């Protein structure tokens, strides 16, 4: 790590001033520790597991085996009849889960790439925690799509590859766009997760023994920290941070086109693209906050890295995105209602007064009323329990939103003779299975790769300093990145 000269000692001013002490306690960037100590802290967090960790992991593994393994196998062998779909509700909770997990995965890219591009310094300690959510969330989204397919054993036909039938996928179909977009996003977000990981893997390689050492030796790709390696890494990361943003926006826009391109009342809405992107961020940022709160409470040394200031910043983001979501929801509703189409009108009434009308009200309450009523308050934003609860409710509400868009809207079409209700079947265990798999993968990954990008934190701490102008302590930042 050539750039990070070992000059952290210069930060160790004697603390004379209350304000200064407060600033250092508040901001991770102003509270540096020696590099060796910080590396050891991250290594310790990664290698420490208690019996509770393994108990939870074992429980989740059992849930995955039963809910995903058994029920999915049962569904594949006996057909989608064991799920709740019928005519005309051909898309059910599997697609709800797909949209939901893609939404969760958005936050990782948002936090790491968008905040990096805009040089939001508070992002540094938790970019990797968020990016891991991207990758594992996309895994769940992909699994949900496969569950949704009638003949999943032929799903490779969606891939464009030369074959004896001489057929390519139908590029007119939004589903083919979706397939390509999700794959692009999965590949690029995995690469974007991996690149900043290389120096940390090299750090871990130099500080571990046994199987870990062999693993990190392979994964670190022989990174030694020479000037040239850092220059290449920085160039690639900058390039990716900018390049992955349009990919992120395109993915959820394309997912929204699955609905918006169809000729259905309630679906063919031109605002669906941005509405879905904001919805994704709404659930994704809340999920990042929830994950950080859990990581902070359960992993060793994480209270140093993840502080109330980070929860505070995420809480502000949640509030702003909740406002944006409310605007887009209103926009979508208003334009559809104003249009006055008979079937759309019927559908809007069905959303509000139908058998799952409570879901519609809960969506508005938890997505708008709860964040607006609480997140303006700094002490609530900084309270982990409160923020976790708000994030949980927002995620439930966003799941409801997708439920309202997919099966509830499919109940209404232009032929009242065919109207049906939707009663989920094996969708319920399979949904819990994906959730359990997500948590399990995340738990295991948190003990295999360094969850805090140490070098990014150290770099940020190098750049920040407190300067005294008269009696006033001022935070100054020098730009190390370019």
């Amino acid at each position, binding site marked *: 790590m050539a750039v990070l000269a070992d000059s952290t000692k210069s930060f160790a001013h004697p603390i004379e001033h209350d304000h200064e002490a407060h600033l250092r306690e508040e901001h991770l960037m102003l509270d540096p520790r020696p590099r060796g100590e910080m590396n050891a802290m991250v290594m310790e967090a990664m290698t420490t597991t208690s019996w509770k960790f393994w108990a939870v992991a074992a429980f989740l593994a059992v849930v995955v085996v039963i809910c995903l393994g058994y029920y999915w196998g049962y569904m594949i062998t*006996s*057909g*989608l*009849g*064991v799920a709740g*779909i*019928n*005519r*005309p*509700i*051909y*898309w059910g909770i599997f697609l709800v889960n797909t949209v939901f997990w893609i939404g969760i995965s958005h936050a990782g890219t948002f936090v790491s790439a968008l905040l990096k591009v805009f040089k939001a310094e508070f992002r540094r300690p938790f970019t990797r925690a968020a990016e891991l959510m991207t990758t594992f969330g996309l895994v769940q989204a992909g699994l949900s799509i496969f569950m*949704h*397919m*009638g*003949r*999943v054993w*032929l*799903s490779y*036909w*969606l891939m464009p590859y030369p074959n004896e039938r001489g*057929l390519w*996928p*139908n590029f*007119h*179909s*939004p*589903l*083919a766009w979706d*397939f390509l977009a999700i794959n692009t996003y999965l590949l690029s977000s995995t690469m974007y997760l991996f690149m900043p990981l290389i120096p940390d893997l090299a750090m871990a390689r130099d500080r571990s023994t046994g199987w870990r050492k062999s693993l990190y030796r392979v994964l670190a790709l022989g990174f030694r920290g020479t000037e040239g390696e850092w220059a290449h890494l920085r160039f690639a990361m900058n390039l990716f941070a900018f390049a992955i943003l349009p990919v992120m926006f395109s993915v959820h826009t394309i997912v929204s086109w*699955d609905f918006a*391109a*169809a*000729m*259905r009342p309630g679906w063919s809405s031109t605002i669906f693209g941005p509405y879905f992107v904001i919805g994704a961020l709404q659930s994704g940022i809340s999920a990042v906050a929830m994950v950080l709160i859990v990581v902070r409470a359960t992993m060793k040394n994480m209270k140093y890295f993840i502080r109330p200031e980070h929860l505070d910043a995420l809480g502000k983001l949640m509030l702003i995105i909740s406002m944006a979501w409310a605007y887009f929801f209103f926009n979508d509703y208003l334009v559809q209602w104003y249009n006055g189409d008979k079937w759309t009108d019927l559908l809007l009434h069905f959303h509000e007064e139908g058998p799952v009308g409570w879901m519609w009200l809960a969506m508005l309450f938890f997505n708008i009323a709860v964040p607006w009523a609480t997140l303006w308050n700094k002490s609530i934003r900084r309270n982990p329990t409160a923020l976790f609860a708000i994030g949980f409710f927002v995620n439930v509400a966003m799941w409801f939103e997708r439920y309202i868009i997919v099966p509830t809207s*499919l109940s209404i*079409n*232009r*032929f*009242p*003779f*065919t109207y*049906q209700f939707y*009663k989920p079947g094996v969708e319920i265990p399979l949904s819990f299975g994906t959730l359990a798999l997500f948590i399990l993968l995340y738990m295991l990954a948190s003990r295999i790769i360094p969850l805090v990008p140490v070098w990014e934190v150290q770099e940020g701490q190098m750049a920040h300093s407190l300067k005294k102008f008269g009696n006033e302590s001022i935070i100054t930042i020098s730009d190390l990145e370019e």
Partner: protein
Amino acid sequence: MANHNIPEVKANWEETSGVWGMSIDMDVCSGCQACVAACAMENNIAFVGEEDSGYGRSLHWLRVEHTFEGEYPEVEATPFQPIGCQQCGHAPCEPVCPVFASVHSKNEDLNLQVYNRCVGTRYCANNCPYVARVFNMRDYERPEPLPNQFNPDVTVRRRGIMEKCTFCIQRIHQGQDKAKADGRELLDGEVVPACAQACPADAIVFGRLDDPESKVSKLSKAGRGVKLIEELGTLPRVTFLEEEKTYGRTG
């Protein structure tokens, strides 16, 4: 619309009259469901059982709609209306299939479902404004004696596959082959799909729309003809002849 020069997969989306068409006279339809039964026999449609059928999973390619209009007590029944695939000239189900299982045939101008290409995304069914498509939720067992009457000209579908009315394309091809073997043109009324054959009131008339002298062309162009939600631009090939209540059915 930009490039529709791929004839195998796209109809030439122009306002053509179509090749094969059907007219259904709602004035004489008595709602007897003979067409539904005949269609199921002809096309090897699986028997889904009471429970699945009640949950909206019956696989009938035709459904005889009968609903009620108005507020109680001024309730009026709508006429019986057999609705299946409208064989749209500009079909919403075709572009959305990611694997080209839902395609347009250029010769017959029909929407075809290629069963062994279907992977079961069910997007076509969602995008069908007529709710005409049905999905094989399970491998349904056929109770005796149904296994003894399979039609050898029609594929038996397995679970996970979308299916829909084909205008009995196997009968169209049989008729065409016979006419070709005899060295003549196909006669009007020579090809009769199962539903039209079974209809005791002759409410369903099938024939060529590109022949202005055929019975179906004349009926379709008569004043009573309406097409279902044609404002969506789907160019349906099925014409419903509106009720005149001349056969005694009152509200």
